[in-house]
């Protein structure tokens, strides 16, 4: 299982999900309409490193973070 965290304004508790790739995670969330609006604009980090490929593998115990657009300062 990997843990998915929804950061900042997404406002959702973290979840444990069983997937092997980011593509599978995308598939897992595809029917979640409310989350879909966030997914259009969020970036993804695995173990605190931003990733850019849906082929990225997800291993047991990985932390997956969804990061909405930012505005520090």
């Amino acid at each position: 299982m990997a843990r998915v965290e929804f950061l900042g304004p997404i406002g959702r508790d973290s979840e444990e999900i069983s997937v092997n790739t980011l593509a599978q995670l995308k598939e897992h969330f595809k029917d979640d309409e409310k989350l879909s609006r966030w997914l259009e604009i969020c970036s993804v980090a695995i173990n605190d490193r931003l990733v850019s490929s849906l082929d990225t593998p997800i291993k047991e115990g990985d932390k997956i973070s969804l990061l909405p657009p930012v505005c520090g300062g």
Partner: protein
Amino acid sequence: MLELHHGPLHVEEILNRWYNQYRDQNCGAFVTFVGIVRDEDGIEGLSFDVYEPILKSWFDAWQERAKQRDAHLVMAHSMGDVPNHTSSYISGVISPKRRAGLELLDVFVEDFKAKAPIWKYDLINGKRVYAKERSTALPGAGILGGN
């Protein structure tokens, strides 16, 4: 040095502390930027969420870049609520000479705005409203979206 503080920053304490900490290193320039919350559009202030692990690795990468120019970066940011006319963000560069310091601070602050994992909310009638229109998508945004 990266500092996170709950609420508005104590600007005088932070700047004085940094000045006293670095003044003896024989660097000729200490360049700073202090961000102050503006009273506009009826807000009472701003509020911030910070994702510390990625902020720290972002800052550490910048500190390495600064080191290559014999410079040192300092930064403080607020977590939570920051009222109008108080400060939420201070950053600075200690550098041997002023030109390098001024240039480094410019690029550092611009990259901070684009990349730091910090989310801003307007405080309106005591509630947090995500400042979506003023926010910038991070690299790889939308990877899980669409078809």
